C-alpha cells in the first residue's frame, strides 16, 4: 500500500534548518555582486516602479537625440559625429550623474547599510570601487546605446561598400573610446561628491553645483586672462572643458579648441590633468570609505 499512499499524499515537510554546504566565493565575487546590484539599482531594476521613472526618462534623453541624428543623417543632412555626440548630451549626462550617484552611495549612508557590507568579506576599498564602476557603467551604457543606434542607422545607409562600413565602424569604436574617456572624469568626481552626504537631495545639489559653478568660473577666467597661455590654463578648472580638450587633442577634432590640436603642450597637459583628476577622485573616494563609521 505504501506506493499508493505516498503517491496520493503530497505532504510538505518542515525539514528544519539546513546547513549550507555549497561553495563560498570570495572577495572578487562579492565585488562583482555589489557592482551588478548597483548598476541595476541605477536604473531602478529590482526596485519599485517609482524608482524606474527617473532613470528611464533620462534614458529617453539619450536615445531620443540618437534617433533624431540617425534620421537626419539618413536624409543626407550633416549631424554630430560619434566623437561630438557625448558633448552634445552634456546636460542630460550631468543630470543623470546628479540623480544616480546619490542613489548609489548616499542611500547606503542614510540607511546605515554600510556596516552590513563591511562586516562581510567585501572590503571598504572594494565597496568604493564597485560603486564608482557602477556609476561609470551606467552612464556609459546609455551613451553606448545611443552611439550604437547611430551606428546601426548609418551602417545600413553608408556609401562605399565594405570600406565604407569599415570606416564607419572605426569611427564608431573611436566614439566609444572617447565616450569612456569623457565619462571617467565627471563620474569619479560625482561619486566622490555624492559620498559626502547621506541626504540625496543635498548630494544631487552638490553634484550639479560642481559643474554649474566651475563652468562660469572657468569661462570668466578665460575671458579675464591676459595671455593666451593663461586662457588655456583656465580651461583646466572646468571638468567639462577639460574633457573636451582631451577629446580635441586625442581625436583631432577640428571644431573646437584648435590650440589643443596644434603642436602645443596643452593637449598633453589637459589629458594628464584629466587622468590625475580621475585617479585622484577615486583615491579620495577610497580614503573617504576608510574613514566612514561602520
Amino acid at each position, binding site marked *: 500500500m505504501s506506493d499508493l499512499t505516498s503517491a496520493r499524499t503530497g505532504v510538505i515537510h518542515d525539514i*528544519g*534548518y*539546513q*546547513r*549550507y*554546504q*555549497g*561553495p*563560498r*566565493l*570570495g*572577495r572578487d*565575487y*562579492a565585488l562583482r*555582486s*555589489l557592482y551588478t*546590484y548597483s548598476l541595476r539599482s541605477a536604473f531602478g531594476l*529590482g*526596485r*519599485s516602479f*517609482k*524608482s524606474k521613472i527617473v532613470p528611464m526618462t533620462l534614458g529617453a534623453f539619450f536615445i531620443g537625440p540618437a534617433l533624431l541624428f540617425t534620421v537626419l543623417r539618413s536624409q543626407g543632412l550633416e549631424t554630430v559625429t560619434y566623437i561630438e555626440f557625448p558633448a552634445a548630451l552634456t546636460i542630460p549626462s550631468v543630470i543623470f550623474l546628479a540623480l544616480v550617484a546619490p542613489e548609489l552611495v548616499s*542611500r*547606503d549612508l542614510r*540607511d*546605515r*547599510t554600510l*556596516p*552590513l*557590507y*563591511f*562586516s*562581510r*568579506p*567585501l*572590503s571598504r576599498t572594494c565597496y568604493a570601487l564597485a560603486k564608482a564602476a557602477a556609476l561609470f557603467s551606467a552612464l556609459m551604457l546609455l551613451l553606448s546605446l545611443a552611439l550604437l543606434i547611430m551606428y546601426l542607422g548609418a551602417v545600413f545607409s553608408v556609401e562605399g561598400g565594405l570600406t565604407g562600413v569599415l570606416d564607419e565602424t572605426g569611427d564608431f569604436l573611436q566614439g566609444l573610446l572617447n565616450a569612456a574617456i569623457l565619462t571617467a572624469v565627471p563620474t569619479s568626481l560625482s561619486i566622490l561628491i555624492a559620498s559626502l552626504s547621506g541626504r540625496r537631495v543635498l548630494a544631487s545639489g552638490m553634484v550639479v553645483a560642481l559643474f554649474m559653478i566651475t563652468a562660469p568660473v572657468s569661462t570668466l577666467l578665460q575671458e579675464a586672462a591676459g595671455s593666451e597661455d593663461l586662457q588655456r590654463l583656465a580651461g583646466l578648472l572646468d571638468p567639462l572643458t577639460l574633457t573636451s580638450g582631451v577629446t580635441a587633442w586625442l581625436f583631432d577634432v577640428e571644431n573646437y579648441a584648435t590650440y589643443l590640436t596644434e603642436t602645443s603642450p596643452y593637449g598633453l597637459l589637459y589629458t594628464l590633468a584629466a587622468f590625475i583628476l580621475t585617479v585622484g577622485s577615486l583615491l579620495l573616494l577610497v580614503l573617504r570609505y576608510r574613514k566612514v563609521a*561602520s
Partner: protein
Amino acid sequence: MPRGAGLPYRHPVPVITTQSLTKRYANGVTALKDLTVEVEPGIIGLVGANGAGKSTLIKLLLGLLTPTSGAIRVLGLDPVTQSAEVRARVGYMPEHDCLPSDISAAEFVTHMGRISGLPAAAARERASETLRHVGLYEERYRQIGGYSTGMKQRVKLAQALVHDPQLLLLDEPTNGLDPAGRQAMLSLIHRIGTEFGISVLVCSHLLGEIERICDSLVAIDGGRLLRSASLSSMTQHTDLLAVEVDEGEQTLFDALTARGLQVKQEDRVLLVRVTQEETYDLIRDVVADLDLSLHRLEQRRYRVADLFAPSTAAQEVSRV
C-alpha cells in the same frame, strides 16, 4: 576551506578568545581594558550597561577595529589578519536601523547573501528559507519600508543568518520591540542556538531578559570584565533560602550570622546561602530557639543579576 559546519557546535574549540584585549580610541577614550575571556560554543550573553564596551567588542571580533593591544581569536582565526575568513563565517546584526526601504526583504537578503559569497541561485534559495525561519512568509516580497519594527528586526536577523554562519553576533536584538515581540525574538534566538546549531553572542543591557536563553554569560562594565562563566556554574553553588519571619528579623540575622552562615538582608527577607544539608535544620532550630514565628522558608535560585555588579544587582533585586 575547512569548516565546522558538519560538526555540532559543541566541539572543544572556543568560539571567541581574547587575551588582555585593550581598545583605546584616537580621542583617548578607552573602550575596552585588559579583557581576557574565553567563550565556549552555545548561546552567550554579553551584558553590560550602555557604553560598557559591548559594541566595541563586536567590532573587534569582526575586524572592523584593530585592537590597541592584546590578542583576539574568533573561531580560531585572527580577525585582524584574516578578516575576510572571519567575516565569511560570522553573521552580524547591528543595533541600529540598517535596512534600505525601497526594496523587498527577499531581494535585499538575497543581495546580502551574495555579498557573503553565496552563488546567485544559492543566495536566492537561502534568502527565502532564512526569511521563513525568522517568520516572514508572503510579506517578504513587499518593500521593507512598509514593515513594522518587529518585521524589520527579523529581516536584520535574516541577513545575518543567510550565509549560514558558525557564529552570530547580535547587538541588542530586542531593541524597540514590544513585550510580545521581545519574547518572539528571544525564542527565535534560542532556536538558532539550539536547533540550528549556530553559536550566538547576544548583546544586551537587560540581563534579566537574556539570562533565560543563554548557556553562558560575559559581563563587562567600563570596558573591563566583571565575570564570565557558564550559567550552570554560576547557579550551581548558589542555592539560597529565603527566610521570612513575622518580626525580629534583625535578631535572627544576628543569630544566623553568629552560627557562621552567610546571610543577606533584603527588606524583610533574609537570604541564607545553603552550603550543606544541615543548614535547613540549623535555620529551623535557630528560629525555634528565638521563638519567632516563621512565615516563609523557601528555596530561591540565585538570580544571575545577584552575581554581577552591585548596581545591576540592586536594580534586579528591587523588582523581586
